[in-house]
């Protein structure tokens, strides 16, 4: 399977071209732009329906994923994330996993395992977002809201706003906290940050989805109030 990232850097989209029948790519729901009609599309949850239900009970999270399978060589699928920004391809190797923000995972080869019930996943982000662990062997495509900015972490480490985290390498220690002390707790507007230490690489996105959502909030229509009693 060949992958090519087009329309960089602001509206990046990936074109996956299959080389053999039966080759497949797994992508987050809602990301298909177009495909040759003969490509099969099947929807599922990470780990399958039952496993996901069990997972939810035990505190993990799930992602809806679409699997696109080729029926002949040369077929293509175009995938794009929801928000504007860049895309990058990473290689996962055994012993070299990658931690990815659930909203940043676009697609991956079927040889990559996504662990969503790994402990430490909760409490990182709000609203059903979580940290994915990508393990195994193969390629993953990661999207950013905005530009993707790599930071090499070493020495004193680096502090990143949680909303700006895209992915980071195995081997980094992280510690989630608030900044600015008591006043900062309520007023700094900075929310949660993550202090990374150790040696490794962190990828940040230049835009903050929560801030954007808060910005757009006043433009929403107001719900009509109920008339009198129920």
């Amino acid at each position, binding site marked *: 399977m060949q992958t090519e990232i*087009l*329309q960089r850097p*602001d*509206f*990046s*989209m990936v074109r996956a071209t299959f080389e053999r029948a039966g080759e497949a790519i797994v992508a*987050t*729901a*809602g*990301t*298909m*732009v*177009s*495909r*040759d*009609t*003969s490509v099969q*599309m*099947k*929807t*599922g*949850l990470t780990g399958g*329906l039952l496993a996901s239900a069990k997972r939810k009970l035990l505190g993990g999270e799930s992602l*809806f994923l*679409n699997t696109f399978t080729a029926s002949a060589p040369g077929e293509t699928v*175009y995938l*794009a994330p*929801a*928000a*504007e920004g860049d895309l990058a391809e990473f290689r996962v190797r055994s012993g070299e996993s990658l931690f990815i923000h659930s*909203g940043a995972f676009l697609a991956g080869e079927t040889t990559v395992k996504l662990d969503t019930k790994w402990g430490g996943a909760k409490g990182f982000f*709000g*609203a*059903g977002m979580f940290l994915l662990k990508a393990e195994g062997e193969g390629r993953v495509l990661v999207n950013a809201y905005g530009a993707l900015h790599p930071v090499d972490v070493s020495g004193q480490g680096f502090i990143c706003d949680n909303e700006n985290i895209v992915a980071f390498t195995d081997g980094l220690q992280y510690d989630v906290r608030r900044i600015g002390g008591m006043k900062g707790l309520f007023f700094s507007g900075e929310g949660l940050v993550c202090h990374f230490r150790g040696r490794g690489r962190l990828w940040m996105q230049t835009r903050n*989805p*929560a801030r*954007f*959502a*808060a910005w*757009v*909030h006043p433009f*929403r229509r107001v719900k009509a109030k109920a008339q009198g009693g129920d």
Partner: protein
Amino acid sequence: MNHEITHGPSFAVLKVGLQRGDVLTAEAGSMVSRFPRVKMRTRINAPRSAGFFGKLGAFLTALVRKFIAGESFMVNDFSCDEGGEVTLAPTFSGTIAVRKLHGDRILLTRGAFLACAGDLQLKMRWGGLRGLLAREGLFFMEVSGTGELFYTSYGGTLEVPVNGTLTVDHGHVVAFDPALDFRIRLPGGGFLGLVASGVGLVMEFSGRGAVVLQSRNVSTLASWLTPRLP
């Protein structure tokens, strides 16, 4: 009349230099700036016809355009006898493309129209019953005649030739060849696919011709934002 598209591909704006006799018809609300001597005349967005019934027909067509198809009710005609410049911008981030028509036709999706000049006819075409399932209905604008058409995209554009059949998420279609046949379908992918695939209505194109895709989709953006809203 001359034009320049600057700040592409992500935040493209259209600068048009008007000479005596030139008229640029633009989507209402799209003006960024102009020389004070450029005249702006607002009129109802419908083909001009003489007589009372013609005007009434025009008024109703414009209403349909506004509420069902999402095009503005009004358009602005810019002209300048002494020569002047006007700058237009669309609402979303993305490109602006120009297409010169010489008696041929092109179909645009709703919201893609920015401006036009010359002797062009703009007609609304309906996508069929299934199109109504799309949250905003499925209307296309057929542009024909001789002149210049300026249209926009949300994201970058890619022209994809159709060889056989091509399935495209309808939110990612900007424009296409009227010679193509198309069907509007539900996304497929099995029972779970209906609910969970996240892919909206798809258009299945067949025949010979090209489809212009955009690499972002407003409905997907709205779905992405929804869980992140305060």
